[in-house]
């Protein structure tokens, strides 16, 4: 019977060697970039999870395969419908109401727009990297999960 890797001195040494090599192979800036991501931690806002993405919907339920991509984020109290147009993000909050919607990316300054009474908003920017939306009014503060188009 083969010995277990942990019982064999040479085998455990070889595995340790591999484990340390694997760690050394990771560029330091890759690790440091991961550490700085911590500044995006937000404690106050409620998180809205992605509950629908037309890209991942079964083909049979798609109205049109070439349609604009549609996303839905939801918390127990608020739903954010979002459509990704050529060069803008078009959305609506449900239940409707006036709120501030902030587009956050990792690189650019945030862009803030105000919705109309129906909760509709347009952000004239289509982010290329990861982004998320923060929606705030007098009663709610909701943050969507990060998404990359």
């Amino acid at each position: 019977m083969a010995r277990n890797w942990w019982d064999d001195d040479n085998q455990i040494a070889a595995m340790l060697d591999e484990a340390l090599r694997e760690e050394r192979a990771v560029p330091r800036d890759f690790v440091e970039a991961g550490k700085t991501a911590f500044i995006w931690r937000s404690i106050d806002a409620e998180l809205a999870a992605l509950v629908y993405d037309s890209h991942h919907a079964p083909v049979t339920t798609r109205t049109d395969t070439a349609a604009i991509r549609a996303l839905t984020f939801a918390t127990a109290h608020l739903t954010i419908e979002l459509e990704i147009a050529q060069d803008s993000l078009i959305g609506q909050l449900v239940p409707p109401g006036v709120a501030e919607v902030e587009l956050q990316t990792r690189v650019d300054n945030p862009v803030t727009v105000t919705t109309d009474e129906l909760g509709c908003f347009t952000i004239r920017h289509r982010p290329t990297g990861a982004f998320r939306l923060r929606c705030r009014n007098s009663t709610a503060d909701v943050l969507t999960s990060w998404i990359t188009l």
Partner: protein
Amino acid sequence: MRDDPTVVAMVTKARGGDRDAWNQIVERYAPLVWRICRAHRLSRLDTDDVGQTVWLSLIEHLRDIRDPAALPGWIAATTRNECLRSIRVAQQRVHAELPLEFELATDGGFDELEAEQDREERYIALRDAFAQLGERCRELLAMQFQEASPPYREIGVRLGMKVGAIGPTRLRCLEKLRQCPALARLIEAERKAAEGK
């Protein structure tokens, strides 16, 4: 490692806003994220992108994570998904209508994922244990890991040891490694699993 107290403590602290704990999590799992990106043959640029998305998602996930010990599995799965997304986007750039076959081609079976995860857990435990060894043991073991491992005579000179002591010291160091809690726990779990078969 179902209930690794190290991971549980790190997650709890990071959730409470402890930056050092977050840094430890990143240091610990960055090799896993990096290796999965390499396995999917992503460019460095795409790898950076995937890494960022994984870490950003993890920061959010920290809040509602119920079983911190499931963290490595979560990170691996999230990284894999992001790699596939990245590949899809790249394919769309090149070829608007290329079928999405890559997903099936790269995604190994469940067994393969399990094996990879087991291996990663071992590596992490080994690195943890190594970090807890005394400096002398670390130096001695590291010297033997070099591409051209120096002869005992040279190791002896560098570490100020008698040649005859090197072999036995190496064994003692490996024994200490096994006894480090991080590795001892994993070995115990694997031993039980092996006996159960």
